[in-house]
């Protein structure tokens, strides 16, 4: 009886001795602070922080690989204690909460297409009824069970509802969700995120260059939550007042309602939300991340520069804008006439951006007043070149250098330089883009008796916004399509008339537009005393030649050379974007480029490398393209107030007005709140479908 006890005791004793010796020999020098931090942690070993137990979490905090607020149970109180123990100052940290990107509910069902048929009964029966969605929420409530903090409940429409008060952003629900529709969103991740093919994106969200969550803000407007609506816009676009006025709405082209109705007036709604803030007189609070200690210089203050400055500032970096002209705004100020975008409004918008804590220095010309070397000496961690496309292409015809011949951008810029703008009686504008229309409409307002736009293709090929063309026609601007100027005739060195040659449309060129072909012997003379040519712009990069320290490369299209996926130039700490990288484009494209550059710069100055975007959405997701929409009855679209013709001419008063609250809330109900292929059917239809089920 004694023997087994002795043997067992012996084994135990030997094991204890070995373990004791081993713990001495293999003792790992541990930072005593780990123990200190561990004693402050709740000790629940829940794993919510992502580490294996509180011990590992404490180690990560002390080693600096994790934040002091890593513990998801302890929240702010514990984080403060740990910060105090480690001798760190606790600054306002960002709140990250869970959200879902699925509107679920009773949505339109996916149809089974078969051999061109819209809906195949057999296929539907084979797959046990209609599929509601193959991406969206399944309504199983896995996330509810996964949440350790009781922050998730299943709503009445079988979709999870998140309680931001209780959510600690631990990410357990994200890991539990089998469909990947839950994500942890902080203000920072909203800025850094870029659309992916795997997401549930409404067609308009896919088409908007700035990737604004359009259905979301329209939904807020419908509910009368204008503040939330505007904040949703400002997550992606710092210039809603500007875009609400000048954006040609690429999103509306993709609007699913266009299949059988007019598109939702998305831009009127954006303009309404933006004007609501301005008219309330009080600016909304825009959250800004704690200072990162990194400095970024922005060269150019057009939409790209302002957008990059805004997003970099919100990411916590110190931003300085350098602008060559006397006021900020770039093309928005010097290229867009007053009657489309009143300068007072632009000033208010820019002021709001600068108030976030951005320094702006005007009247400093890159290349002559300062150089890349200067930026290095000033200890900037990165720079963003957004100098735009300001030079006008010039026709190579006789008489182009005569007095009375202007370039479009130059003509429009004169309104701001207190230069007297002399206007002729008969003005001819050459070109078919927005600059040409702006120049023509401005000439008319300055008192020109007749204004003619000469364009070498037909109206359908004009690159200008259709709304602008219609407005120009209404105002009495004459269009001379399919005509190319061949020479400008003079009388004593002053423009007297212009000879044009008639054209006809031939084969489409690489851009898809039909190429104009001259008709021999069809020359005509039109009388004019002033010619404005606006046939396309390109970046003015002369300053690169002036700067001896310059090492930036220029492409054969006369744009700054950069990596398309990162916007990083040949000089790693210099980024570029907007018109000077892509050639002339839309304001909203420049704003998007600003945020894209801000993303790259943020990663570059914090991590040193820029992670690629996986599954980056570049073209329209094919499953979101529908042939028809079922259960949606046409609903008339609102019209914005427009100043009468008599009131327009002779003044630069803003032509288009903002819709009122009632109209805005009505227009918002026209939105189908689309997902990638689902959409809301009209309510009557829905209840019918429910009773059938």
């Amino acid at each position, binding site marked *: 009886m004694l023997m087994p006890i002795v*043997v067992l005791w012996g*084994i135990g004793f030997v*094991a204890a001795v*070995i*373990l004791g010796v081993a*713990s001495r020999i*293999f003792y790992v020098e541990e930072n005593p602070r780990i123990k200190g931090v561990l004693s402050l942690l709740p000790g629940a070993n829940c794993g919510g922080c992502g580490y*294996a137990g509180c011990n590992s979490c404490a180690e990560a905090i002390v080693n600096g690989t994790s934040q002091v607020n890593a513990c998801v149970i302890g929240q702010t109180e514990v984080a403060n204690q740990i910060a105090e123990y480690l001798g760190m100052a606790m600054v306002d940290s960002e709140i990250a909460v869970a959200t879902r990107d699925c509107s679920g509910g009773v949505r339109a069902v996916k149809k089974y297409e078969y051999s061109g048929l819209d809906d195949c009964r057999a296929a539907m029966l084979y797959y046990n009824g209609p599929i509601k969605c193959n991406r969206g929420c399944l309504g199983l409530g896995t996330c509810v069970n996964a949440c350790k903090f009781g922050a998730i409940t299943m709503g009445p429409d079988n979709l999870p509802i998140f309680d931001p008060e209780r959510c600690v952003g631990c990410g357990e629900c994200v890991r539990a969700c089998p469909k990947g529709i839950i994500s942890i969103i902080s203000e920072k991740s909203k800025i850094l995120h870029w659309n992916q093919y795997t997401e549930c994106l409404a067609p308009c969200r896919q088409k908007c260059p700035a990737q604004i969550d359009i259905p979301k803000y329209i939904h807020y407007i419908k509910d009368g939550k204008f503040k939330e609506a505007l904040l949703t816009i400002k997550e992606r676009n710092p210039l809603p007042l500007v875009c609400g006025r000048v954006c040609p709405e690429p999103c509306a082209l993709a609007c699913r309602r266009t299949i059988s109705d007019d598109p939702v007036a998305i831009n009127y709604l954006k303009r309404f939300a933006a004007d609501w803030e301005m008219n309330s007189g009080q600016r909304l609070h825009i959250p800004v991340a704690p200072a990162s200690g990194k400095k970024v210089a922005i060269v150019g203050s057009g939409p790209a520069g302002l957008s990059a400055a805004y997003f970099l500032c919100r990411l916590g970096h110190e931003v300085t804008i350098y602008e060559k002209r006397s006021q900020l705004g770039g093309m928005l100020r010097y290229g867009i006439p007053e009657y489309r975008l009143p300068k007072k409004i632009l000033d208010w918008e820019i002021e709001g951006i600068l108030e976030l804590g951005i320094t702006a220095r005007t009247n400093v010309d890159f290349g002559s007043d300062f150089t890349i070397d200067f930026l290095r000496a000033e200890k900037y961690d990165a720079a963003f070149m957004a100098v735009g496309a300001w030079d006008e292409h010039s026709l190579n015809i006789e008489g182009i250098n005569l007095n009375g011949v202007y370039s479009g951008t130059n003509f429009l810029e004169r309104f701001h330089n207190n230069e007297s703008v002399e206007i002729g009686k008969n003005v001819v504008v050459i070109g078919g883009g927005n600059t040409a229309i702006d120049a023509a409409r401005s000439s008319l307002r300055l008192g020109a008796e007749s204004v003619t736009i000469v364009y070498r293709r037909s109206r359908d090929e004009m690159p200008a916004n259709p709304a602008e063309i219609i407005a120009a026609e209404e105002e009495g601007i004459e269009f001379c399509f399919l005509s190319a100027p061949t020479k400008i005739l003079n009388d004593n060195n002053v423009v007297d008339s212009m000879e044009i040659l008639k054209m006809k449309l031939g084969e489409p060129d690489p851009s898809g537009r039909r190429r104009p072909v001259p008709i021999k012997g069809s020359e005509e003379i039109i009388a004019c005393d002033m010619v404005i040519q606006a046939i396309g712009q390109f970046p003015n990069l002369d300053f690169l030649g002036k700067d001896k320290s310059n090492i930036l490369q220029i492409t054969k299209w006369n744009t700054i050379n950069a990596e398309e996926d990162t916007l990083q130039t040949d000089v790693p700490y210099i980024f570029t974007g907007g018109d000077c990288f892509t050639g002339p484009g839309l304001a909203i494209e420049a704003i998007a480029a600003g945020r894209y550059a801000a993303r790259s710069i943020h990663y570059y100055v914090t991590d040193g490398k820029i992670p690629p975007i996986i599954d980056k959405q570049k073209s329209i997701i094919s499953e979101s393209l529908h042939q028809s929409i079922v259960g949606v009855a046409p609903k008339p679209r609102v019209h914005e107030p427009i100043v009468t013709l008599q009131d327009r001419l002779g003044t630069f008063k803003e032509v288009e007005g903002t819709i009122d609250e009632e109209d805005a809330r009505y227009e918002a109900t026209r939105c189908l709140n689309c997902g990638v292929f689902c959409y809301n059917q009209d309510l009557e239809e829905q209840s019918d479908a429910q009773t059938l089920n």
Partner: protein
Amino acid sequence: MDLLLLAIGAIFVNNILLAQYLGNCPFCGVSKKLSTSVGMGLAVIFVATLASIFTWFAYHYILKPYNMEFIRTLAFILIIAALVQFVEIFLKKQSKTLFNALGIYLPLITTNCAVMGITLLNIKYEFNFIEVIVFSAASAAGFTIAIILFAGLRERLIIAPVPKAMQGTAIALVTAGIMSMAFLGFTGMVK
């Protein structure tokens, strides 16, 4: 050849999980995710092989000479517990990467019946030293294969429309039963 048969027999025919029903707690507890089940499986292979070697020596050179075979279960518990602790201390100092990979699972295995079962089976079948190593590594590999397959099934089960009463462990055990029946198909492959 005999060793190969021994290994195949241990992995498929007498699978420690599905034929002998040992180690059911980690089988249900750590099989919710593929990544954790892989970690668990590797840790079991590592510890089971080591434990078998140590217990085999202890049995043949301490217990057997003193005719103490009957306390082997108790003695093995002691040895395995001490061994796992030792391995943890050792790894923490010597191989930080291995510690980080196996660290969380090591303490879980201390009282694992699969490891215990393998060490006791080694004695029951009167294996020699080489056979002990092959048998214990193969048995643990069988455990790993089963738990990885099972985790794959459970990841799919989460999104399957399971009746409320059957959700969670209930459906997991039913699935395990069906898997076990599938593994019965290997019976007779090796005598």
